[in-house]
């Protein structure tokens, strides 16, 4: 059949056993990969749900934080430039660690607070409470952002891995296993045919032997009705049926 090939192998019983072993191996590999793919897909869907939740919450939190910013500007005037000038080193840092899920390495980001609050006294004489609220709101927004970052990178990596795994599963299911099965059926059919040939040869041989005996019988009957001399083991005559003598 066009496009469908099989492994070229000499059909023998040994090859049959080997092929059977390969088929078993392929089937086991297929089921393992399928399990891996299912586990990854479940995790993938979980992450997707969390991403949607986090993104909607992010929208809310950012909105709240911008509004708090407006409130603080109302109470305190423009403190933006002052805060910008006061920064020299990051107070919030992000650390990444690897998480292993069904054999896949996913990065998880965590926030680390480094150093004390540089803007502790900002708004001391005016607007201090609003500044406090802003700090809290934007800290919440940043931690949400960090979570979202971990989720999105996991999402992308998982997507890639799931695609690869599914490709392999399909390859085994639709290419490897049929190929092995075809090879197996070919070997089996070849072996059957050989048996039939052998059987036929035996039959033919027996027929030929019966003919030769019948001819010898006739010759003896024509030469004199003596009857067939019984075979005796003391005879030293060579037996045709023995191959090795």
């Amino acid at each position, binding site marked *: 059949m066009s496009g469908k090939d099989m492994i070229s192998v000499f059909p023998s019983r040994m090859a049959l056993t080997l092929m059977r072993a390969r088929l078993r191996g392929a089937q086991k590999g297929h089921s393992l990969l399928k399990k891996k793919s299912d586990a990854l897909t479940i995790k993938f869907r979980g992450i997707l749900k969390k991403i949607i939740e986090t993104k909607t919450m992010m929208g809310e939190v950012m909105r709240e934080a911008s509004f708090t910013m407006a409130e603080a500007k109302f109470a305190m005037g423009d403190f933006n430039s002052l805060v910008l000038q006061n*920064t020299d080193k990051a107070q919030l840092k992000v650390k990444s660690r690897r998480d292993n899920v069904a054999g896949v390495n996913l990065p998880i980001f965590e926030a680390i607070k480094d150093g004390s609050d540089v803007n502790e006294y900002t708004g001391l004489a005016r607007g201090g*409470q609003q500044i406090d609220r802003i700090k809290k709101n934007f800290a919440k927004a940043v931690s949400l952002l960090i979570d979202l970052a971990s989720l999105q990178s996991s999402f992308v990596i998982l997507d890639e891995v799931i695609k690869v795994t599914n490709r392999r599963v399909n390859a085994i299911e639709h290419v490897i296993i049929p190929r092995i099965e075809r090879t197996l059926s070919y070997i089996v059919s070849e072996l059957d045919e050989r048996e039939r040939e052998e059987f036929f040869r035996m039959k033919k041989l027996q027929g030929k032997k019966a003919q030769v005996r019948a001819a010898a019988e006739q010759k003896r009957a024509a030469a004199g009705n003596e009857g067939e001399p019984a075979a005796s083991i003391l005879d030293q005559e060579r037996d045709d049926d023995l191959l090795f003598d």
Partner: protein
Amino acid sequence: MNSLNFNIDFGYLEGLVRGFKSGIVKQADYLNLMQCETLDDLKLHLQSTDYGNFLSNEPSPLQVSIIDDKIREKLVIEFEHMRTQSVVPLSTFLDYITYGYMIDNIVLLITGTLHQHTISELIPKCHPLGSFEQMEALSIASTLLELYNAVLVDTPLAPYFIDCISEQDIDELNIEIIRNTLYRAYLEDFYKFCQTLGSTTADYMSEVLAFEADRRAITITINSFGTELTKDDRATLFPRCGKLFPEGHSALVRADDYEHVRAVAEFYSEYRILFEESGNNPTEKTLEDKFFEHEVMLMKKAFLEQFHFGIFYAYVKLKEQENRNIVWIAECVAQRHQTRIDGYIPIF
């Protein structure tokens, strides 16, 4: 100066200020502004007020920061006009008004210099009313001490630095502490100056500056809970004038939380009312809002009397409040957060 001779030197400017005052945005205009859906609507409504076409040259996607800048620019133009037309002692009085903004500008520039940022980016961010000649020169120094010796001694704020900060401390202090110490010296100085102006000005400005000092004392106390500011440091930030000085101050220094502060304020009738009507829930007005309202009420009183300088101070403060109000409404409109849009402080 008295009622007879006031108009000789200051009559024109008083008339001018009263004219400006009647152009301050009214409650009806605020109601219109609150109905706006976009910032362009807001611009349209502002055209019917005294602001006129101040936004007409701005490119189309209007932003709140541009509106803020333009409003401030209008105030600066008006103030500068009055400043240039005035003579002593009104010119000194107007200078004192600008020292407050100067302190903010200096603090901003010092912070930038200490962190090795370029000064030229900061100059546009300074408040224009508080500009002084040595502003550009601040970039030459790298520590606060050098900064002081080289540049700040020549500014009008030099005496405030001398009063409160000794040479050793200056490099270690947090910039906010410096700002508040400077402001304290400024308030005390302004208070003394107003006393020399006599009669109505002295009366009015004493009351106003006393309120300002008390407000700062209370706010500093409340905001210093939970920080590392020690009680002694806190005491050095309270201006030595106002109703709370000296007994109220010593009580405030000992205060440990909001309830203590409220208890101290109970002794003074105006502040007791402010505390009673404010609260920390999102629906109630905050203490800051109540302070703003009280300030607006004091400022409006200035225009009920004639022949004193308080109207100039009141005018600047009211225009600032108007600026804040309009920017607040603009932010609410831009962020589509209509719930708190009426959080502005009504003036007239």
